[in-house]
């Protein structure tokens, strides 16, 4: 048996120091530390007001210090890296430097004949690439990818593993986390290592009272922030006792680094132990839908329609504006649920998270689940008949009016913007 302090939970109140009958506990860097005089009597466990001290069987304690470096699952489909993989390499790069100077970010590249993608990983900030190639790994399968990543984790022991919250990442990550008996946080929209960066983020973007957080806290456990209850609430999750710490991250949320052409890094070719019998599902075919690919996450301008467009034909005017401004068509969940438009257009908590330069919300009331997916847009323009619609609370420019009358005027005046602006300056 042993007594262990969960550093991420410890608030440094010192209650345990006075309670210890053997004077075995001291404060170091604002955290309790159990010294060699400890007899595992457990008096401190009960005394701790924040349940930061626990008694564990020796074989249950994971040696956290044995785990090092950050891994990013560099998801590729058909030989092309997903955008979210590049975003996460950038985020992993940032977090690695927050942990320590010698912490690296590795892209884990899995497939067959995809070695050429390593350069792209380096260009976007990967210090190294773990390349796992086999004909059986050409297409994603839950069984195949879980096995080889799990095996590699056992061998290399990364501290953090990040996955894109894609239909593949969300299938794979829970399976690996369960096999590793570690925690996984889904659909994160913000990651922090240093408490000081978490405080900065919280002050800028949230209502959280940060006075109980210590900016000099030396702990480097990852703080994973995600929406819950349909975006009504944000929760920050920690994984204090097990490793690796794992998160899936929503596509479109993190920023890619500026690519450095010609960048190189450490290449680790990991030989997978994989056999046909390991894979119990068979991918018969992969079909790209004939419908136009809606790339909401890459769009600079999104024109979205909501219930106010009235029906499927109401999206004609939305499409006209999108075409005029070089944007793509988005939608609220209500329209998708009503069958007015395909789900691939859906913006929001259960759809796609977007942050375009301009977001036009047309006839969208602004349910919290929708706001959760678009409120980080640079500029939000709301057009709605109802002056009390919640969408106006987040809009940079609000127009109370009939979208069928307002949008044609925006289309008509769009090319005159320069002249109108110059005229207004005079």
């Amino acid at each position, binding site marked *: 048996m042993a007594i262990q302090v969960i550093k991420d939970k410890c608030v440094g109140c010192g209650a345990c120091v006075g309670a210890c009958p053997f004077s075995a506990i001291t404060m170091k860097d604002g955290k309790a530390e159990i010294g060699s005089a400890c007899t595992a009597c457990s008096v401190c466990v009960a005394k701790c007001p924040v349940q930061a001290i626990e008694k564990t069987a020796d074989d249950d304690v994971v040696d956290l210090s044995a785990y090092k470096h950050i891994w990013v699952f560099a998801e590729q489909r058909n030989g092309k890296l997903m955008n979210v993989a590049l975003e996460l390499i950038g985020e992993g790069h940032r977090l690695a430097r927050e942990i320590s100077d010698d912490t690296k970010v590795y892209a884990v590249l899995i497939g067959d004949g995809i070695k050429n993608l390593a350069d792209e990983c380096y260009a976007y900030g990967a210090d190294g690439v773990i390349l796992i190639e086999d004909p059986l790994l050409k297409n994603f399968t839950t069984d195949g990818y879980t096995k080889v990543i799990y095996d590699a984790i056992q061998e290399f022991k990364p501290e953090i593993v990040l996955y894109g919250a894609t239909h593949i990442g969300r299938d794979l990550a829970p399976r690996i986390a369960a096999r590793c008996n570690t925690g996984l*946080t889904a659909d994160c929209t913000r990651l922090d290592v240093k408490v000081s960066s978490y405080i900065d983020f919280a002050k800028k973007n949230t209502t959280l009272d940060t006075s109980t957080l210590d900016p000099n806290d030396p702990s480097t456990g990852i703080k994973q922030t995600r929406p819950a209850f349909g975006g009504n609430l944000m929760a920050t999750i920690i994984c204090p006792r097990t490793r690796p710490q794992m998160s899936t991250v929503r596509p479109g949320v993190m920023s890619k680094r500026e690519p450095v052409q010609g960048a190189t890094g450490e290449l680790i070719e990991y030989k997978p132990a994989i056999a046909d019998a390991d894979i119990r599902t068979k991918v018969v075919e992969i079909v790209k839908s004939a419908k136009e690919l809606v790339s909401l996450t890459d769009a600079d301008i999104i024109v979205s329609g909501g219930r106010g467009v009235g029906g499927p034909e109401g999206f004609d005017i939305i499409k006209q504006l999108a075409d005029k401004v070089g944007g793509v068509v988005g939608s609220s969940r209500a329209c998708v649920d009503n069958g007015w438009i395909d789900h691939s257009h859906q913006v929001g908590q259960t759809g796609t998270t977007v942050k375009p330069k301009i977001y036009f919300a047309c006839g969208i009331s602004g349910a919290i689940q929708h706001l959760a997916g678009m409120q980080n847009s640079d500029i939000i323009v709301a057009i709605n008949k109802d002056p009390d619609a919640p969408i106006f609370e987040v809009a940079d420019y609000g127009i109370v009016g009939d979208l069928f009358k307002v949008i044609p005027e925006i289309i008509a005046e769009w090319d005159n913007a320069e002249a109108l602006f110059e005229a207004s300056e005079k």
Partner: protein
Amino acid sequence: MAFKIIVCAKQVPDTNVIKINPKTGTLIRDGVPSILNHDDANALEEALKIKDKYPDTHITVVSMGPPQATDMLMECLAKGADEGVLLSDRAVGGSDTWATSNALEATIRKIGDYDMIFAGRQAIDGDTAQVGPQIAEKLGLPQITYVEEFEIADNMKDITVKRQLEDGYEVIKVQTPCMLTCIKELNEPRYMSIGGIFDAKNKPMKVWSAKDVEVDLKKVGLEASPTNVFRSFTPAPKGKGVVLEGDTEKDVAKKLLVGLKSKHVI
């Protein structure tokens, strides 16, 4: 021909009607209805469609939650499921997805034999989509998530599904036993019938404790969960912008374009 099917379902607050108390920043739960989670309704429907075709099929709906979650299980029975099993115990309260899947794994092992497990892709209160795959891992089953079309051959063994991708789908073959997680594109859930509601009262409804399912108590509940909530808060409202006014729609459109130009976004 008869299948044994397990459906995993969760009772959830209807997040579409949840509101935030702007003063305290906490959720207002009063008056928020509890419902059968959307994707789980699709999971149940797919099982019921199999039962429509093979009437001897036996469907057990399993859930974990407070005692009142039997209301949701009654709804499932009224729709046509044969048996409800609720794991309800304070010892499993506060479980994260790892601990929840341990508890449900034990519950399903206790139920015993099955050909297929259908679950919803994710629950609307947590939106994690993790519990289905994690149960599959612990039961040693192959899984297919995001199922939008399902077909089982007459040999009762070979399953073909369409699995949704962001830009299309993949066709996947698997054999029973397996775990399938379902999305709304899969089917249109049926309503309860009057006769079904009447029949439901006579169907078995089991409420089990952690002891009943013989789960290792070191693997369930808040304390055992590898993830913990560090902080929770409400998102800060974005600063309110300007409402553009004018005599005509054209005037307003012009003001908007001047504004967009001044912000250098066009």
